[in-house]
């Protein structure tokens, strides 16, 4: 496979990573690791299959590994910069930050499903394939994730520990 074909998907990988990881720095780390792995393993991609779904599957593995290593080094997870921030002065930004804050409060497994389907518009079958889980599990995570996100966004006052950007 020509690596140029992987390059075509970088903007969408970045969009998904930004929503998944929260901040731009962590997101680009995720994209970089995903691209490196994809280039190294490109002989494993089956010609004719959906390259985008394959890349999302790789990103899922990288993401899970990053979560694991963060759990092994909890001090990283407590880094203030990693917390989503709220800008109180700008209405439009505030909405986005609220959404990002709410996303960050979703369990990662639900966040992945909600984003792959709601943002990246994968079919349920593609999401099942990318995440390596049965379609029934995709659906139950989607149901719970969407409901939790709805409650978080509508009940924004109950979201704890918002960081205020000065």
């Amino acid at each position: 496979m020509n690596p140029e074909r992987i390059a075509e998907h970088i903007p969408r990988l970045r969009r998904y990573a930004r929503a998944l990881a929260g901040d731009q720095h962590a997101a680009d780390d995720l994209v970089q690791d995903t691209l490196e792995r994809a280039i190294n393993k490109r002989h494993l991609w089956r010609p004719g299959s959906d390259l985008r779904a394959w890349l999302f599957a790789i990103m899922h593995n990288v993401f899970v590994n990053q979560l694991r290593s963060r759990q092994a080094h909890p001090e990283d997870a407590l880094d203030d910069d990693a917390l989503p921030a709220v800008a109180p002065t700008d209405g439009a930004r505030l909405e986005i930050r609220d959404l990002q804050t709410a996303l960050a409060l979703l369990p990662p497994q639900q966040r992945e499903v909600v984003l792959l389907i709601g943002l990246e518009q994968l079919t349920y079958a593609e999401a099942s394939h990318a995440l390596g889980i049965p379609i029934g599990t995709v659906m139950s995570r989607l149901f719970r994730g969407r409901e939790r996100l709805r409650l978080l966004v509508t009940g924004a006052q109950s979201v704890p520990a918002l960081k205020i950007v000065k």
Partner: protein
Amino acid sequence: MKLSDNELHAYVDDRLDAESRRAVEAYLAQAPEDAARFAAYREQNAALHAAFDPVLDEPVPDGLRHISTTRHAARVAVAAGWLALGAVIGWFANSLLTDRPHALMSFSRQAALAHAVYSPEVRHPVEVGAAEQEHLVNWLSKRVGAKLRAPVLTAEGYELVGGRLLPGESGAVAQFMYQDGKGKRLTLYVSRLAGKQRDTAFRFSQEEKVSVFYWIDGALGYALSGELPKADLLNVATTVYKQLNP
């Protein structure tokens, strides 16, 4: 009749055919709680797009774009480099057996050989990297026994990778390595020449795939090697010469 969550979410994601969609809409029309909830889910999808679609229009950072293009190009260049090495070694061994090359001719061959040996190297292409350029130049100058300079080839599209020290016929030789955005490498081989030499104009030699422009300037011999068309290499060699003779 209550519809399944599967159908209602498929409605949110526009995955239903027209008939099923009408059935869901008919259901939601008489189920206000579900109607509000699934409308909120649809808004969620719209909000996700509003928040994150702008990322699609951001320029891709060079670091990310290069992973998927340069590394591949570099690997191709590396593979080509190893092929060139085999060819040059074979040819070099042959020429050692069959004739005693003129000193300057031998110089360009050694430069081509050194290029073919080190330019495909991925992990250790140089001994001292460009980050320590001052140390690199001072060290090589001291060992070669002449004041050396590493030309700046940025305008030609090449950045200094670093350099290394090599053994030559008349003592230590310096090799500076440069690389372009696609991983294509050039090396500048600089040696103090034995005996008294006259300055020369550029000379060109083609050692299998490696093109070499070489010349003598004062007590030093220079050879610029690379696997690129003669005219392109000449262009870079001219820049090198001008910078070393301002």
